[in-house]
Each structure stands twice: as structure tokens, then as C-alpha cells.
């Protein structure tokens, strides 16, 4: 190989891991929508959707870590280590890299809060998790602006495909929001699917509330 010096190796590594990170983040967002809609990946058990969502996000962080470290180490451009997490603090392309820093900050916050989910209020965790869309958009725009890689060829089609996939997923989530089975009926619906012959009864049977003893003077029975 000629032309690949140590410096350009770092630069290529940063760009390549950047592409993979964008793909992983897109997959995580799509899986997140699937988790929310309680959907399934065809042929796979249900717990795989949540499991894959979590594991790919961790894998994504690993790739992002290599992506930013190689970019910082690369002597060809001046990117300070601080600018990894502080947006718009780099000397090189501060705007585009700043968006990357924003995305990374949000992703780290989501992962840390998710690891500590048992210890925080559900509502707070959920509110923060909405920021995942901010992270994805920020990452996409960062990818488009930081280099010319995504401006043509295969990578352009990849970027378009990722964008369309996320738009489609969000549209699916919004349109199906009102149509889910109400939570009070979900277990019965699952049971009906599992054993249709013994589906739960429908409304019409009289209530059978807990009653006090039939007469006012029921004795606690002596059981000997």
C-alpha cells in the first residue's frame, strides 16, 4: 500500500468508525421505536428486541469512542480532547464537530440513566429518553457536514436509507399511537391468541364481589 501513513490511517479509522456509529445509532433508534410499539423481529423471541436495542447502543458507544479518539490523535487536524464533549470547542470545523459532541453527550446521558433506571423515577427516565431523537438528528447532520464522505456514492445511499428508515419508523409510531390495545385488555388478548378455545368471557356475567359473612353472626369456624 502506498500513501497510507500513520496519520492517514487514523483519519481513515475515524471516518470508517463514524460511518459504523451512524449505522448503529440508526439501528438503535429503529429498535427503540419497535420496543415502544411492543413489536417483534420476525422469527425472534420478544426479549430480543429490547436486548438488541440495549446491546447495539453499547456497541455504538464503543465505535464512537474509537471514532473520536482517532480524530483527536490525528495530527492533521486540530481537534482538542475537550471538544469531544464540549460542543463547538474544536478549532477544526467547530459547527459540524459540535453537533457530533452534542450527539455524544446525549447518548452518554441516555446510557447512564438507563443503567441506573432502577434507581430513578420512571417518568424522569422516559422524559430524558425522548432526547434520543435529538441525538440521532445531530449525529446525521454531523456526518453530512464533517466530511465529504456521505456526499456521493454508496455512502450517500446509505445516509438516505437511514434517514428514510427513521422517518418511516416515527410515522409508524405516530399513526399507531391511538390504536394499541388498552393495557387493561392486553393480557386477555394475549391469552385469547394462545388458547383460542378457552378465550376469556365477555362482558355480561354478573359481578361477584367479596361479600361479608352471609349472616351478621358468622363464627370463625373451629377447624378441629
Amino acid at each position, binding site marked *: 500500500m502506498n500513501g497510507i501513513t500513520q496519520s492517514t490511517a487514523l483519519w481513515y479509522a475515524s471516518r470508517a468508525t463514524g460511518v459504523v456509529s451512524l449505522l448503529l445509532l440508526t439501528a438503535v433508534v429503529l429498535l427503540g421505536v419497535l420496543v415502544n410499539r411492543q413489536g417483534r423481529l420476525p422469527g425472534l423471541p420478544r*426479549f430480543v428486541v429490547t436486548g438488541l436495542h440495549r446491546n447495539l447502543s453499547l456497541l455504538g458507544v464503543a465505535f464512537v469512542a474509537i471514532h473520536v479518539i482517532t480524530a483527536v490523535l490525528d495530527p492533521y487536524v486540530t481537534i482538542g480532547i475537550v471538544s469531544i464533549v464540549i460542543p463547538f470547542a474544536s478549532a477544526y470545523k467547530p459547527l459540524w464537530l459540535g453537533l457530533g459532541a452534542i450527539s455524544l453527550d446525549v447518548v452518554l446521558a441516555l446510557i447512564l440513566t438507563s443503567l441506573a433506571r432502577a434507581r430513578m*423515577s420512571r417518568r424522569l427516565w422516559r422524559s430524558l429518553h425522548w432526547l434520543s431523537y435529538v441525538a440521532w438528528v445531530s449525529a446525521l447532520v454531523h456526518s453530512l457536514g464533517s466530511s465529504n464522505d456521505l456526499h456521493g456514492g454508496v455512502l450517500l445511499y446509505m445516509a438516505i436509507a437511514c434517514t428514510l428508515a427513521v422517518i418511516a419508523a416515527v410515522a409508524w409510531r405516530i399513526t399507531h399511537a391511538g390504536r394499541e390495545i388498552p*393495557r387493561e*385488555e392486553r393480557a386477555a388478548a394475549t391469552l385469547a391468541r394462545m388458547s383460542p378455545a378457552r378465550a376469556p368471557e365477555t362482558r355480561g*356475567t*354478573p359481578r361477584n364481589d*367479596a361479600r361479608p359473612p352471609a349472616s*351478621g*353472626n358468622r363464627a370463625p369456624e373451629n*377447624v378441629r
Partner: protein
Amino acid sequence: MTYGTTVPYPAPSPGPQDRARTAPAGTASEAPDLPRLLPVHGAVPVDLRTHLSRYGAPPYFGHPGKLIPVLKVAGLTGRGGAAFPVHRKLQAVGEARTRPVVIGNGAEGEPASDKDKSLLWISPHLVLDGLQLAAEAVGSEAVGLYVHRNARLQERLRAAVAERAAARADLAPVEIIDAPPRFLAGEESALASRISGQPAMPRFKPPRVFERGVVGRPTLVHNVETLAHMALIARYGPAWFRSVGTRDEPGSMLCTVHQADGRRGVVETGLGTPLRDLLQLEGTQAVLSGGYHGAWVPSADAAHMTLSNEDLKAAGGFVGAGVLVALPAGRCGIAETARVARYLALESAGQCGPCFNGLPRIAAALDEVASPRPDPRAVTDMIRWAALVEGRGACHHPDGTTRFVRSALHVFREEIRNHSAGRCVDPAREPFLPLPADTALDAADWS
């Protein structure tokens, strides 16, 4: 300690004020021996006058927090199933910075349990005393009693509260709140949701109810039996309370006992009582302890066990809210478990995927195992799903259900083998374990 000792109640004393804490704690002639919460003879509901002449006025301490060290020495644990140390709950709520709410939990969602409704019907004033004492201990003036939708019982309770208000026996007014007839309605956070005006569905923790419960305020929730014990400990002292039971599990408790011949009743007994003193074990194959979130134990083992967590936990069970069911030998334990598992699946609040997906699957697999020549994968599937479902819900419904199902798979393994060979000990399948006639169908059933 045997139960059912017929000790006459102490003779009425000159005046309630004189009795309040002038009698030394644990004086045998003053303090009742078993039964303590329920009357000795018959079950005539006790009105306020009889209650006061028997026990005296509620012994208010005049200052928050004073009851807590008394309960600590007594070692009273919750009688709603979780057996959490009562003094710790009171301490935690008492330390809250905002005004707490105190709720007596009489929503006995367990179909096999009768003790809370019996106690409320017969001895409401003991419960109401305890409620007031608890409210005083944590400095609360917002007090409620949460009971299932039952016109006669609620009418009786409202009358009791009105009697007390007229006699100025209460420090704070008591509101009677309606619970829907759901298995989970009595769960602490479901209770807090319902009283806050939402459906009676469990919430995710944190925050726990003692931090943020009813309308966001710190909430003290105690089972009605626990409150009744509190009312007596405040009068007769911790040493009296500990005079029955064991050292680690002191005191008495109410048990709902189901005999193999169908007799069903509520008895009060000391913890540590041998199970064979409570149940007729001849002609039975297994005992269910702890209700439908509890566990099956073979009768041969139960014959050597006592009513204590020490013994029952070693067999995978627990004392819980004191439900004990003796399953006759000629019944199919798997079919009974399948019926109950189906009920438990349908009682899911539908909030957590593992629960509303997993429990119906487990119930369907149990139905499969209960039928002739079942698919051999059903049992392994069930075990796998049970592992996937545990610990992944907002509440312990999936965990309790899998504990119940796992114990059945173990205790009734002989019957499972029978079914694989196309036989069943009871093809007629007459239902034995009690279940409500109808199920939750839509949102209206949770409010």
C-alpha cells in the same frame, strides 16, 4: 402455643381512662390471650360500646413518634403478606417533610383470603383504633380506609366511623375509599394510584409509596390486621404481644384455612403453630401456603412444618397473609394450578410486556400440561418463560405467579408424568381452589 384457648375477656373496668396504661404490660388477667382480634364465642360484630368496655379508650400518646419504639420492641411485622417491620415504615413516614397520609388497606384481592373482610366486619373498632394510633405516630390528619366495593361492609364501616366521631374517639376523620375487585388493587402503589383518582394499577418504583404515594404525599399503608395488632400492643405492651409466637416471628395472626372437605374459615393462631394443628392433613396431597403468590408444599413435609417463614421459606413457600389450603388426594393439582394461573394472567394490569405476554403464555402452557398427552415442550417452555418474566415488572405479580407455578411443577411432577401417559387422577375436574366468577374486561374494571 395452641390456639382457641377460651379465656374470658376481662370484666368491664370502672372507666376507660383508668385502664389506659395503668395496668402493667402483659398482665394476664387484663390482656386477652388467643384469640385476640376476634371474639371468643361466635362472631357478633362488636359495636363501639362493647369495644370500649372490653379494651378501654384508644391509648393515644399525645405526641407523634411515641408508638414507634413500642412497636419495635414488639417486633410487629406487616400482616398483609410482605411482613415488613412495622416500626420501620412508621419511622420512614414520620420523618417525611410534608404531611403524610395514612391508609388502612382492607382490599383483600386474594380470592382465597377472608381474614381482612372478617376482621373489618366483626372488629372494625380495633382496626380504626390502630389507624388513629398510626396517624398520631406519624403526625397525619389525612386518614383513609381502603376496602373492596361491597355495600354492606362499607355501610357497616361508615356507621362505625360515625359512632366514633360522635363519641370523639378519633383524632382525625376517616374516609372510606372504594377499591375495584382486582387481585392487584391492594398492592401499595396500586392503592396510592386509586386513592389519587387513577385506576388501581401498580406504579414503577422508585419512588416508593412511603416517599411519594397518594397525590404525591408520603403515604403510610398498613394492612387492617396489622392496625388491629397495633391497637392492642399500644394497650397491653410488647411483652404481651410476644407472649405467643416465636422469638423471630412474634405474635398472632389471622389465617384463612381451607380444609380438604371444603370447610373454610378464619382462625387466629400464634406464629410457629404446627400446620397439622391448623389443617387436617390426612387424605391430602399438598398444602398451599401464602395464597396464589405462594407455594405448594407436599403434605408429608407440611406435617412437620410450623406456620413460620423459617420453615416455609425452606420449602419455597412463605407465610404471607396466612392463606392455607389443603388439597385433597383425589384432585389434579396441575389442573387446579392451571385454573389459578389463568386467573392471575387475566389480572395483569397490562403495563409491562413480560407480564402481559409471559403470564398468559405460562397459563396456556399449564392448560396444555393439564390436558391428556400434553406436548412435552410445554414444561420446558414454562420454565424458560418464568425465568424471563421474573423481576421485570413494575410490581411483583409476575414473580409471585412464577413462584406459585414453579412449586406446582415440582410438587405435582408425579401427576405430570401421569398426564404424559394419558392418565389423570381426577378426570372430572371439579374446581377446588376458590376463584371469582368473572374477570377484568376493560378500564372500568380497574377504577
